[in-house]
């Protein structure tokens, strides 16, 4: 059984609309809902947890100020957040920064009960082996994987966030998944 948990888009839109009208409670709810994915996204690149805290805080400060100034995102809040998070990372570490080894160890999905033999196989993989597989991906491929699979962003949104065209993103995600698969499953 393959499970991809999809974000609740309608609720996101409702919250964003309320926050754009100045609803402070909605702003706080957005923080509660989106801190975790944004923090995880940042933490994949940043070794230092304190530094990751500061960067995640920067992202949400920018968002709240955007709400206050009437410049908040109108379509995809998640897309906006990840784009800002990505910019904050680049501003701090530059474009070439790869995922840290520490974060990669934690990025490997924890073993879970699953009846699907392929998933069981993946979960049974040695974490070191998975980490090595992930390290072979470029930062761009890693980003695309996170945005497309973890956040279920559309191809267009992912292209907007990463500043690439749609065909490049399509190719990136294919190569990323294929490389990961070949390494993990020994194809």
């Amino acid at each position, binding site marked *: 059984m*393959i*499970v*991809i*948990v*999809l974000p609740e888009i309608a609720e996101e839109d409702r919250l964003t609309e309320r926050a754009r*009208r*100045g*609803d*402070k409670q909605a*702003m*706080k709810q957005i*923080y*509660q809902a989106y*801190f*975790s994915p944004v*923090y*995880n996204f940042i*933490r*994949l690149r940043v070794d230092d*947890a304190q530094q*990751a*805290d500061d960067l*995640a*805080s920067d992202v*949400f*400060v920018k968002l*709240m*100020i955007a*709400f*206050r100034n009437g410049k908040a995102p109108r379509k995809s809040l998640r897309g906006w957040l990840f784009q800002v998070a990505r910019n904050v990372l680049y501003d701090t570490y530059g474009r070439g920064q790869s995922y840290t080894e520490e*974060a990669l160890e*934690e*990025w*490997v*999905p*924890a073993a879970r009960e699953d009846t*699907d033999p*392929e*998933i069981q196989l*993946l*979960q049974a993989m040695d974490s070191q082996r998975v980490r090595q597989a992930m390290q072979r991906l470029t930062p761009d491929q890693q980003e695309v*994987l*996170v945005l*497309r*699979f*973890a956040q*279920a*962003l*559309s*191809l267009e949104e992912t292209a907007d966030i990463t500043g690439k065209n749609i065909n490049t993103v*399509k*190719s990136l*995600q*294919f190569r990323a*998944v294929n490389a*990961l*698969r070949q390494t*993990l*499953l020994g*194809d």
Partner: protein
Amino acid sequence: MAANLLVDAFEVCVSQIARGQTVAQVVAQYPQFAAELRLMLTVGSAAARYGLPTAEVEAARARVQPGIDDLIDSFPDRRLPPWVIPLGILLVIAIVTLLFMSQPGGAFAPAPTQTPSLTPTTTQTSTPLPSTTPTLTPTLSPSITPTNAALACTQALVLEGPIEAIRGNQLVIYGLTVVTSDPARYRVGMVVRAEVCTCDGGDCTGVTAAAIAIPTTAPVAQATTPPAQGEGAVSGGSPPASGDDDDDGDDDGDDDGGDD
């Protein structure tokens, strides 16, 4: 070529899964790539479940939250009270309703001007009594009475005094012109009491008839006829500029002819 097809098929599958379809459903569309796609989607879904331990994320959230809350709380409160929007809607509805009702045909529109259709009737109300000493008390008493709603009068006016002149169908009393449809009944010098309507401007159409009666010392007549301008209409404070206003040749013989 096949590789491009696989790339495209994979993208289609990822997008459809993001919209809620199952892996089995999306893979079934591409039987030639089914095994390959299923494997890749499995890898992708595993990668999607990345994430730090919940405890670490919660600890980070708790560390950052006070600063974010303080920032949010420092914003000026520009959220409208909950009753403002319903009130606004009600106001808009009220304004639109008023505008609609004030249109022609609406409930608040001015009542249409009604032109009464008058049936000419002449009634003899009293017997003329000769008087040797006609006491002329020309007291102009323009007692203004409330407008009779049935009449299109702007105000009612009572004129009592001698007829100063007769021009066609117009009697001049104290310089005021009273229109009558039966000028032959009156003579210059005759004291009459006219209950007339005044009308504004030159358009006196629709002004209803008024009674022109001769007081007890003089023959009494009542005229209630609907002339073109309206019986009993008073126009202006002075007679017409000339008698040429009389277009009806039938009345020519009466013009000033009754001075005697």
